[in-house]
């Protein structure tokens, strides 16, 4: 992070009280190059603009005050230029784009694997008529049982003679939706709780963080297994189990960021203006503290998918006959000992590819949003 004033401000005479109109000008943010080293111009969130007239004289006279803020929050916030800059950086990152391509291809394959139909009592509406998968994944004995890969069945068949290729294609639907839905819902729980704990502090903080500490005492999978034991099996129950384990990480991470953001001048200014706490948290605090949570959430899609697959493998996820990648492996040990390698190899490769792609994208998101933080802080990949 450089201490020098942004290029656009260099050489200008700065007079206290006369900079407001200029600093809020959209041209400032867009004209400042790729955004890497111009935080004072790009990091200007609406929060700061509204906060300016009453307080913050210090940062107005001293442009470096804004420039020397920690990188963790400087580049994140609202405003089109920032997200555009992040996308620019992301697009230049080849491995991240490779990861994104893998995910998009897998998603397309999953969507077009079998027709999607919505049927009510009388009507069946076909939303998506394409069928890439040659067979119905649940149809038994479309070929001989445990057949090795051939032209008719590229990935072979499983113990019930079902086409593995079709099952792997359709299985992507479960994996992708479980990953996305569970992570989004966990964010929906973790972000508010973490923001409230960090912003208000005191008793509320104490209660929420002790709950987080207690849940953190249990390993991810053990907690999920416990939840499944209580709720039973099924798609939404699986999602609930993954949300129960997932939100704690986001709450803890966001709280830590909020603790430093709430001490900033623009938050004090917003408070002085009498803006309600709800609005301050939503508009000013969370957008400036969210970056690490976004990175973590991206990486967590991989963790969640692995956990869901592990539960499926243990026979505790979706029903054993579901064409889910983890569940497809649950019989893998038996068929493997009988020498049918293809039954385990293909679903495993599918999981591996997806999680690898998520990790590449996660690294890319990290570099794009937060170029000054090292992407290889792998503590967060474990949770």
């Amino acid at each position, binding site marked *: 992070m450089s201490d020098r004033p942004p290029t656009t401000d260099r050489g200008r005479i700065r007079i206290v009280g006369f900079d407001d109109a200029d600093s809020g000008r959209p041209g400032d943010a867009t004209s400042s190059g790729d955004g890497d080293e111009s935080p004072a111009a790009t990091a200007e969130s609406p929060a700061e603009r509204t906060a300016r007239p009453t307080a913050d004289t210090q940062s107005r006279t001293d442009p470096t005050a804004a420039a020397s803020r920690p990188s963790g929050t400087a580049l994140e916030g609202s405003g089109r230029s920032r997200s555009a800059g992040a996308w620019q950086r992301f697009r230049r990152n080849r491995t991240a784009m490779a990861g994104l391509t893998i995910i998009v291809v897998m998603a397309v394959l999953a969507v077009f694997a079998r027709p999607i139909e919505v049927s009510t009592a009388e009507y069946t509406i076909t939303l998506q008529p394409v069928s890439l998968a040659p067979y119905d994944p649940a149809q038994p004995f479309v070929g001989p049982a445990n057949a090795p890969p051939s032209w008719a069945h590229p990935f072979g068949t499983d113990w019930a003679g079902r086409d593995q290729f079709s099952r792997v294609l359709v299985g992507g639907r479960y994996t992708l939706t479980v990953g996305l839905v569970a992570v989004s819902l966990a964010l929906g729980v973790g972000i508010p709780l973490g923001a409230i704990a960090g912003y208000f502090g005191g008793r509320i903080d104490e209660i929420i963080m002790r709950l987080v500490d207690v849940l953190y005492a249990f390993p991810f999978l053990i907690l999920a*297994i416990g939840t499944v034991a209580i709720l039973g099996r099924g798609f939404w129950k699986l999602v609930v189990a993954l949300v129960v384990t997932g939100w704690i990480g986001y709450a803890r991470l966001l709280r830590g960021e909020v603790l430093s953001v709430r001490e900033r001048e623009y938050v004090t200014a917003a408070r002085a203006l009498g803006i309600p706490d709800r609005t301050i948290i939503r508009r000013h605090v969370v957008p400036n503290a969210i970056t690490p949570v976004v990175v973590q959430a991206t990486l967590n899609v991989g963790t969640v998918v692995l956990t869901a697959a592990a539960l499926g*493998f243990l026979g505790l996820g979706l029903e054993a006959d579901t064409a889910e990648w983890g569940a497809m492996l649950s019989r893998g040990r038996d068929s*493997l*000992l009988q*020498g049918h390698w293809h039954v385990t190899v293909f679903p495993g490769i599918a999981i591996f590819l997806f999680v*690898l792609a998520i990790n590449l994208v996660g690294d890319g998101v990290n570099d794009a949003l937060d170029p000054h933080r090292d992407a290889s802080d792998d503590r967060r990949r*474990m949770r």
Partner: protein
Amino acid sequence: MSLGRYVLTRIAVAVPVLLGVTVLTFSFIHALPGDPIDALVGFRSVSPATEASIRAEYHLDRPIWEQYLLWLRDVLVLEFGESPITGRNVMATVGRRLPATLALGGAAWLLALAIGVPTGIVAAVRHGGPADELSRIAALAGIATPNFWLGLVLLLLFGVRLGWVRVIPPDAPLASLAMAKFMLLPTITLGTASAAFVTRLLRSSMLAELDATYVRTARAKGLRERTVILKHVLRNAFLPVVTITGLQLAFLIDGAVVVERIFSWPGMGRLLVRSILQRDYPVIQAGVLLIGVSIVLANLLVDIVYAVLDPRIRY
């Protein structure tokens, strides 16, 4: 703050967490659908006499907070009663499985350090070079490989195809050569992802340390690069690896649940999964409680070790 006071504060923070862990595991039986008595007998029909004895044993006729305190009193002396499903003593069942899991987890942790530390050092020293790039790809692959799949593939290759190792554990005591040989594949399966984490973590913390001024000083006074890296940088960079030990423990337990199933390893993980499928809830409760408590204690220990190693954090 003196070390003694620091330790006391850490313990004071850990106590409410431990209590929370017991409350959560206690409420597990009551969170199950239906009457707790049904859960305790695994939703089977039992004679009224058995039911009455179980009711008495778990004090189910008392108010719930009293039940909790009575249960906590028993738990403090590791008394979990008998499983209504198998009729065996719960603590004995869990206790018999614990050493196997500890041995597997410990071996995997050592393997993770043995692979991760040298790789992390090389990646940091050759920062940006092909060795660094290679280690990054290997680490990402290690993280993305599902451990159950890795286990199956290793079993297929070395157990089924090549026939080098047995596919089920030998009937031998835990501390024997046959068992050690069998443990090789489960250890690799469990340790791979951890090794990847250690590599990446050590690499990033070493990179941060390499920029420090004391490194420049050490080089300027003519120390060999080897000495600078191994004696000065590594010692400081190793602290983050110590702090994640608690997290690693949780991670290894998660992995053990899966790996033990693949290799029929007689440990806690397999016991837990079997108990869930059998609805043997007292065993699940005891197992989960032990895991939760040991992780809290491990984190406490790590905090204390950290404070001993690095006096700066006692603030």
